[in-house]
């Protein structure tokens, strides 16, 4: 696609094969959305939310096949529904949010398995949504990730301050619609990301870079940009390392491992230089 040509040329500095350039670009696009929204996920203690929404993708795929619906749209709609359900239950059930997320997570996985058991042909493609494959993306998926970045910049541009204020002030005066909007937005990030690179990579990219940023920063701005930098560096380093003959591992898993390694280094740094 023409629009990505300059970015492919830029990625050519690191990688020769075209599919590698495409993967590098995909990781960078996903990192922008995941790392920045991950800051809100970690600060709002919603680290398992992406897991619950991500695993509902299986149910979405199976339901789409059973009902002959568009797979992408069905997955997106079900993910948003799950996201709004978690937000609603967390607000109204008097249960802690991790309990609610665990409940919905279990329900989503069970629904997916139940539907797949009735639709065996759906099972064949499901492993792609779990493990993902960052090396086989097409232009349509890259475009979806670029669209996700635009959505992220607009959403976080408008909502960051409201959502951060709600982390501090009591619930009685917090912004109810802000919570629902964030739940729906995050569900879209997860649904698009999972269809491109799988649950494992999306949930890791939503949590690990933000956790690294949080460890090294005492300000919100510092955390945001540190998370972005950590995600971009770990993504490209992981992809590059996975193709070295001495390593030769799965690209997605290596990216996750480098993210975790970066977090460990950040935690070590904070241990040596504690916050005053």
């Amino acid at each position, binding site marked *: 696609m023409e629009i990505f040509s300059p970015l492919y040329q830029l990625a050519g500095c690191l990688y020769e094969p075209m599919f590698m350039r495409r993967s590098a670009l995909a990781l960078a696009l996903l990192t922008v959305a995941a790392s*920045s929204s991950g800051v809100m996920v970690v600060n709002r*203690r919603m680290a398992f939310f992406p897991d619950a929404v991500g695993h509902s993708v299986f149910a979405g795929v199976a339901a789409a096949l059973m009902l002959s619906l568009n797979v992408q749209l069905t997955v997106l709609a079900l993910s948003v529904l799950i996201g709004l359900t978690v937000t609603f239950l967390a607000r109204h059930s008097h249960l802690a949010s991790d309990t609610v997320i665990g409940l919905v997570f279990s329900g989503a996985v069970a629904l997916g398995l139940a539907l797949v058991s009735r639709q065996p042909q759906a099972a064949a493609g499901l492993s792609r949504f779990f493990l993902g494959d960052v090396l086989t993306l097409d232009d349509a998926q890259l475009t979806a990730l670029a669209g996700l970045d635009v959505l992220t910049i607009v959403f976080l541009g408008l909502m*960051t301050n409201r959502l951060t*204020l709600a982390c*501090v002030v*009591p619930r*009685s005066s917090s912004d109810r619609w802000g919570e629902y909007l964030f739940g729906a937005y995050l569900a879209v990030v997860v649904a698009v990301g999972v269809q491109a690179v799988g649950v494992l990579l999306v949930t890791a990219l939503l949590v690990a870079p933000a956790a690294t940023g949080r460890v090294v920063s005492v*300000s919100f*701005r510092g955390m945001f940009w540190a998370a972005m930098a950590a995600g971009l560096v770990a993504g490209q380093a992981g992809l590059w390392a996975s193709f070295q003959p001495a390593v030769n591992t799965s690209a997605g898993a290596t990216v996750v491992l480098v993210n975790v390694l970066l977090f460990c280094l950040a935690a070590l740094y904070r241990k040596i230089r504690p916050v005053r």
Partner: protein
Amino acid sequence: MSQAGLLKPAPERPPETPDGRPPDSSAPPAAPDRPGPTGGPGCGHYRHPGAGTPGERAASAHKPVVTLADVSVTLGQYKALRRVTATVPLRSQTVVIGPNGAGKSTLVQTILGFLPHEGSLTFDPPSPRFGYVPQRLDYDRHLPLTVTEFLALGLTRRPLWLGVSRVVRKKVSEGLERVMASDLAARPLGALSGGETQRIMLAAALMSDPDILVLDEPATGVDINGEQLMCELLDGFKKDYTIIMVSHDLPTARAHGDWVICLNRRVVAQGRPEDVFRPKILAATFGLHQGAELWSDHKI
């Protein structure tokens, strides 16, 4: 119970009204017209837009800002407030006192509009702006958020990740100066002590340029020095704002309040501190023995 409020001498009381109404009458006191704030260098520089001249203030001083008539609040099956009738006078410090479970926080949350109620609740002006300092914030103490960033949240729509603009930074700096907290600007919010946190919350409440400042137990979790500083700051602000404060600290209420509402799910009495702090009223509010003890031990 902290005695910190006693460390500061009682402020000068406004003169008696000519009609000499009883303690539980609805006539609020004249607004205190003190020479200036005692809270420090930052407090005196601000002037509320509606403050008016001293003469204008004196003329409007009797006007109640908040009027509750037969207000009842039910929380689930529990009747938290029963037919509460009370007033809050303009530009003075009204202190709501009462035992645990008396409905003090419920009362201020009803005034703030957080809780549904029966009865009449009216304001003058009709839609006042509120500045609210909650009792104790239960938030993540490791949240990466500096004091400047926190205060900027209420001043700008520019997302924090783009940084705080110079204009907003200046406003934050002025707000911190007013609560004697300029040195806290770059500190993480979660690293502050209880007293420092309350002053930052006070600064945030003041930045919304409120008509009514509401504080729910501002001395909870605060050391003696922090409590005294908070009281002094509020003394300085009450010529510019109408302040409603919930307190279980009777010495503080007596020393710093201009108007006291004794609450025990219903209004037991309301009036000037010297009229309300009497053994019979305290016994009726806090129970026979505790009221007598408070009086006999000169705790108030």
